[in-house]
């Protein structure tokens, strides 16, 4: 491989500013939605005392999980010394930070008292995995920033490998921590599973890589950089492996749940008669998120086209959102077994009367807030690649492999 050169994103100014303005408008609308919810209180959302975490959490958790996964590309290059991935590392580190910022912004703006952020930063309950996550997230940003610096500054290059390994380990802990937020909720059938944390790690691989591929192809296309098949096919094959792994974990998760009788009711709910959650599970999580991308990526002809690969990555993202929706909201909609062995005939506080699930329909401001997180991620990414040298000048097959013969 030849020496890799990097350069700033070279699209024409009007296009660049237009793009920023567009994202800025989306973010402004989303900020307005957040203000509206904060100002009125959560009664203007679809959230209730039964479904306490709504659509904003779906987006926030998706982005946070994807953030640690986006770093994977850099990790493969550094921690596992795969040379082909090295030119891809900078963008990978940048996306890891911007995705995390986007996700955290949504999470914070959905707090009942977002204005008390300072309280959250100064009062810690060290038994709480949530409090630990605050450290994990800020620490992640710091360590990835250092990693990027070492990667980009020639003088610091000799430290870049340990920093890369550190970042890699940190991200594994971080995703496990995010998964554990659910693992600690012992009372709810859907979450009381040890497999949830490793499943979150593997989901993060898939979501992060899918977003990475989409951003890379988009950025390269806009300023005419070449992304050769060698690199792209390597990435898309990896995406296929990740999607398949998520599918595998999904199978294990539900099979182990089916093994324990106490979880049968919950499994019935998700797999058979949970209405929108069942539909989202089969269509969103399993089909769009797992089977479709696997088929697209490994299809002998479609899998070799840009369109096919973009479709596969998009499917992973959309399927991923559906997956998190089923986990977060489906897990709450299924009535907790407060009185095992009994049926609730009536209740003054919605205890799942006759086993009925809790109702929830997302409200517009919630969705807008979530989309705003995504827009913030993109905005920061585009600014980043514009002002600093994150993108390799070329990823053409010849650049990646001098012995490559053009066919």
């Amino acid at each position, binding site marked *: 491989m030849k020496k890799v050169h990097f350069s700033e994103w070279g699209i024409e100014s009007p296009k660049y500013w237009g793009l920023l303005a567009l994202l800025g408008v989306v973010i402004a609308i989303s900020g307005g939605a957040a203000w509206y919810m904060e100002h009125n209180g959560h*009664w203007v959302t679809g959230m209730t005392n039964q479904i306490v975490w709504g659509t904003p959490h779906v987006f926030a958790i998706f982005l946070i999980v994807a953030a640690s996964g986006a770093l994977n590309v850099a990790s493969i290059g550094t921690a596992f010394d795969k040379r082909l991935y090295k030119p891809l590392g900078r963008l990978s580190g940048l996306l890891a930070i911007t995705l995390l910022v986007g996700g955290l912004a949504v999470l914070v703006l959905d707090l009942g008292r977002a204005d008390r952020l300072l309280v*959250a930063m100064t009062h810690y309950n060290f038994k709480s995995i*949530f409090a630990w996550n605050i450290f994990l997230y800020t620490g992640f940003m710091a360590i990835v920033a250092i990693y990027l610096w070492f990667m980009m500054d020639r003088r610091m290059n000799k430290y870049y490998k340990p920093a890369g390994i550190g970042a890699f380990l940190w991200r594994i802990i971080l995703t496990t921590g995010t998964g554990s937020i659910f693992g600690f909720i*012992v009372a709810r059938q859907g979450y009381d599973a040890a497999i949830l944390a490793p499943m979150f790690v593997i989901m993060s691989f898939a979501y992060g890589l899918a977003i990475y591929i989409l951003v890379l192809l988009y950025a390269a296309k806009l300023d005419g950089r070449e992304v050769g098949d060698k690199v792209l096919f390597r990435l898309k094959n990896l995406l296929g492996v990740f999607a398949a792994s998520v599918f595998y974990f999904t199978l294990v998760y539900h099979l182990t749940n089916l093994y324990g009788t106490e979880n049968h009711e919950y499994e019935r709910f998700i797999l058979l008669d949970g209405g929108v959650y069942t539909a989202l599970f089969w269509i969103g999580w399993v089909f769009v998120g797992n089977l479709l991308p696997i088929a697209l990526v490994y299809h002998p002809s479609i899998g070799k086209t840009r369109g096919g690969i973009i479709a596969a990555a998009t499917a992973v993202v959309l399927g991923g959102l559906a997956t998190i929706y089923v986990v977060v909201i489906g897990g709450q909609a299924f009535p907790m077994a407060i009185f095992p062995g009994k049926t609730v005939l009536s*209740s*003054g506080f919605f205890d799942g009367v006759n086993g009925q699930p809790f109702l929830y329909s997302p409200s517009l401001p919630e969705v807008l807030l979530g989309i705003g997180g995504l827009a913030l991620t993109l905005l920061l990414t585009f600014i980043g690649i514009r002002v600093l040298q994150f993108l390799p000048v070329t990823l053409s097959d010849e650049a990646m492999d001098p012995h490559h013969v053009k066919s």
Partner: protein
Amino acid sequence: MSSVNDRGRRDFLKKSAIAASMTVAPGVVLQTLQARAEPRTTAVTSKVRWGMLIDTNKCADGCNDCVAACDKENGIDLVNKPEGADDALWERQRPHWIRHVKLKDNITGRITNLPMMCQHCEYPPCVDVCPTGASFKRADGIVMVDRHICIGCRYCMMACPYKARSFIHAEVAEKLTHTPRGKGCVESCNFCVHRLDNGQTTTACQDACKHKAIVFGDLNDPGSEVSKALKQYPSVQIRDDLKLNTGVRYTNI
């Protein structure tokens, strides 16, 4: 843990006094501060553990007296539906500290009625998960939320196995001085802590129950009515499989 447990009542009251002076008219503050004169100078100790025994046989079908009394005592009835809110949705959003639940056994078909509220767990999951420590357990076993450091993340609501907590979904115009309440924070039954701290020994729900289904008292005092009743009758903790050692027990469930 112990630092959380031992948080004294003075500390808490100091904070709620500040809250009171911030939120209500000056006259009202004066009145509460006077009412707080004596018994509150002593710190909460773990010599006492407040608890409750509920006899479900006595709890009457269709009765809602304890719920109404709690709503009044803790100002929950003052939480009004915001203008323009959807009725059905608001019903699921407005706070409840106690609720009446009617159950049918899946095998025998036996019907049980019971009031359900925060079970004041000795090992409360809500306290474990709370990132800021707003959710805390007092030395006397009462689990409550310090509304001044609650950030409204709702993790405690996810973690509570009894769905005992409510999030305040809207602005509250009117509130009682002894029950500060704010939009965006979480709250739940606190065993009428303001009464206990004033030297009273009963809760509003207990007083309201004319069927005498609720016995409240000090679980650590073998001579208390609740301890004697617990000794005499077989009782259960709801979801005892979670081993939370709840302060609220039930008989004849």
